[in-house]
């Protein structure tokens, strides 16, 4: 018998186990009725989607901005150096 057959036998035996009974009805209703957990309102959902969409746009935009900046940094420096006499 290999290791997996042993595990499978063990699992088959374990499946016959009785699960302890729980009754969470009162606790759950208490949490919900006392307002400790509230579903999102339509407005909150809308804001959530807007935030997600804004993040989805912001990340590629930041990446593009960084690439553009690194590409144009060289020519910009040259221009600054060329007119540096004006600063002095």
């Amino acid at each position, binding site marked *: 018998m290999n290791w*997996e057959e*042993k595990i499978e036998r063990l*699992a088959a*035996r374990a499946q016959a186990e009785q699960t302890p009974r729980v009754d969470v009805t009162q606790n759950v209703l208490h949490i919900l*009725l006392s307002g400790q957990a509230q*579903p999102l309102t339509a407005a909150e959902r809308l804001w959530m989607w807007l935030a997600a969409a804004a993040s989805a746009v912001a990340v590629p935009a930041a990446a593009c901005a960084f690439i553009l900046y690194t590409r144009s940094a060289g020519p910009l420096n040259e221009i600054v150096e060329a007119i540096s006499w004006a600063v002095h």
Partner: protein
Amino acid sequence: MEAALAQWVRARADSTPVPYRGMPADSGAVDWDDVRLTRQGEPEAYRRLIERHQDSVARILWRFSRDRGVHEELVQDVFVEAYLSLRGYNGKAPLDHWLARIATRVGYRYWKEKARRKRTEPFDLEEWDEAVGDGQATALEPDSAAELLHQILAQMAPRDRLVLTLRYLEQCDVVETARRTGWTKTMVKVQTLRARNRLRKLIEQSGAELIQ
């Protein structure tokens, strides 16, 4: 605009569900009625839903924690989470399946938090080899077998443990595991293969003479 959006969400949420294949004439319809009443703010309807489904949810979560206090808290979390996302339930699948998915997510999250907090106690695998020697597994009491298997799988990373628990204890095939975890079928297959290899290595490293 907000009011119109809220009205639209409500209208969609309260519409009659498309019956799923094999939908029982009574239980599915009863569940759906209670879901609708709960959405309309009727706590008694949610009480009935909890009473009908807490045993099946508890059975799933017993695979995730065998500590009675933690187990009860996890069952509670599932029903709070289910209530908060009840608008997302469209009645196309049995409520039991939907709750099983939430239960799996809650249990997995618990394992991940636990793994971050502390390492599990090392477990002597030779002990299990003795206990599950040829033909001895069937002689074990079911709760001892479950405890032993729980301890073995607790040595694995949460992701590996999840696929192995669903495979061995919940008897889930690839499709069912994908449905419960929200992973793709390919991901489930790959994850299962890796988890099985890691479990085999773990057993081999323990020095237990398992390959007979």
